[in-house]
């Protein structure tokens, strides 16, 4: 039961079928990586799981600790404990980081209960310090005018404040310089614990030097075509994706 389990998931956007009978299981306590070339459906998978309304599920199941996620609203899925760190975090003009995270934390409290402001800010500041974020950031509008690195740090900050059961990090390494990559990876590593599953979606092996996965999966044409341990990532880095595409075609 303590898994994020996806069975035969198929999904489309518009008329285009993107996920094709995808199967995948992420147990709590583990870090998995999904790699794959552009257009293989990695980001679609993350958005479908998070309940994005633009994607139509055409078949299959996605259960988080036994609860079906498909068909739920994005906010319900999030409150059940799934967190998606966006590849391209969205700018929300006029909504400060502090207010944004407060609203997210508050949405998880029972009705009538309110946030204890002092404790909230204490925790927020502590986590910002860990991520090397200036405390004055709390009053800035969410992601507005942020650099790539600042946006990704802000995603990790939200993730750690919301304490999710499962995290999906969609190309969190894109747009990061080497220092930011290290800080962000440390933030993710601190989130590792036996009660949390982490899924890292990436193009490059580079990120996996910092976040060592228990398993690596390769995605192509909307499904997982190969799984292995961390050495699979190194193999891909070395040989590219073509050999896997050829193997799939031959099969």
């Amino acid at each position, binding site marked *: 039961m303590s898994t994020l389990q996806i069975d035969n998931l198929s999904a489309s956007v518009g008329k285009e079928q993107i996920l094709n009978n995808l199967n995948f299981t992420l147990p709590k306590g583990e870090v998995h990586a999904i790699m794959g070339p552009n257009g293989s459906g990695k980001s679609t998978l993350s958005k479908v799981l998070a309940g994005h309304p633009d994607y139509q599920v055409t078949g299959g199941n996605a259960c988080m600790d036994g609860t079906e996620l498909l068909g739920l609203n994005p*906010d319900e899925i999030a409150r059940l404990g799934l967190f998606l760190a966006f590849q391209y975090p969205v700018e929300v003009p006029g909504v400060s980081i502090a207010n944004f995270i407060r609203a997210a934390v508050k949405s998880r409290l029972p009705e009538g209960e309110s946030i204890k402001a002092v404790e909230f800010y204490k925790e927020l500041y502590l986590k910002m310090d860990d991520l090397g974020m200036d405390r004055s950031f709390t009053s800035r509008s969410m992601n507005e005018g942020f650099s790539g690195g600042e946006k990704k740090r802000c995603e990790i900050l939200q993730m750690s404040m919301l304490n999710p059961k499962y995290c999906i990090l969609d190309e969190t390494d894109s747009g990061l310089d080497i220092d930011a990559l290290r800080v962000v990876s440390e933030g993710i590593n601190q989130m590792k614990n036996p009660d949390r599953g982490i899924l890292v979606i990436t193009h490059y092996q580079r990120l996996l030097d910092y976040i060592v996965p228990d398993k690596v999966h390769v995605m192509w044409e909307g499904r997982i075509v190969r799984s292995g341990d961390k050495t699979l990532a190194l193999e891909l880095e070395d040989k590219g994706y073509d050999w896997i595409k050829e193997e799939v075609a031959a099969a």
Partner: protein
Amino acid sequence: MKTSFESSDFFQAFSEKRSWEPGWMADFRKDSWNRFATLPKTKIKDEKWRFSPRTRFGYNDCDQLTDSPKPTTLEGKSSKNVIFESFDQAILDHPKLLSILPSCTGPKLGSDETFLLGSSFSESGFILKAKEEHKEEEAFICRHFAPNQNRSLFQQSIVSIDPFAEVTLIEYFDSEDQSSTGILSNLSHIQVGEGAKLNRIVVQRLNNHSTFNHLEKIELGRNAQFTNISLQLGSAQTRVESRGDIIGDAGEFNNYSLSLGRNNQLFDQRTIQHHIAPHGKSNLLFKNALLENSKAIFSGLIKVDPKAQNTDSFQTNRNLLLSKEAEASSLPGLEILANEVKCSHGATTSKIDEQELFYLQSRGIPKSTAEKLIVLGFFEDIIGQTPNPDLVESLRDEVSKFFHT
């Protein structure tokens, strides 16, 4: 259809009720009423009412005055440097201040009828006068009340800030009760003298059956500064007409307004930034967030006279639509007769960004709360203009409270 306001017997009865007033006031009312009674018939096509369902602002259903109008209540005291009194009190105490009334023209942006009715039948309002060089830290607060029981209430206010004085004024417009219908028509005559500074905040929270007419004319002297922040939250329909005349060198006029439309609400906004003298600055930003079946109209003009060289003037209208039924019409305009000016205008109407909504929801925030946060964020650059930082949070709360009531 005729309203009882047009009947001379009705005006006569009203005059008798106000028989305690001095003769000059009675003459002014009589003259205003005569002008009202001889107003030409409403034109079918009137550019000043373009896009507006004009009948919604008619007096037919509310053509009686209240028997005992709830007077404007004032918080903040008169002193040797400040006169702050109700309209009725000022008629007796400060006739000289009110003697400007016959020369007041109002904004002249379409509501001549309301302006003349207001001049004839005003029974409420206030006078605020700050004397030269007086700087008041505390804000002056006025609470105005819309009538109930299908009645109309007309009121007039005069704000006169003498040279180099500085004042903050907050005006709340509320309904007497939450269920019944009424029309509140308010005329404001505002003069800011040389080097003087007036900050004014308007919070309109009428119940959703009432009509609000808000007509104002602002005159700015040399180096005078006027900043207005309006929160239009309540009413079934609101018509705002705002004219800012920069008549002294380097006067500065800032006009910021937000409207939160829900249900079937209508916000009809007509503005003019009129640069008469050189080196003036004006900045207008009107933002409307429209939910459900609500509707907003913005029509604004920047007018720069030939003598008003080196004018800096900006006008922006932004509309955010949160439903398919909500509607916004925008008519920005420029009329520039000077050749050394910096002027721009712009209007945009956009739907709520689905990606933004998904982003907030993906953090667990329910859709309705996410929409509210996005709207509050949209309004932030209006509320953020509040000169008094202590007020910012309370204005945010005002908007927030109105969101899902």
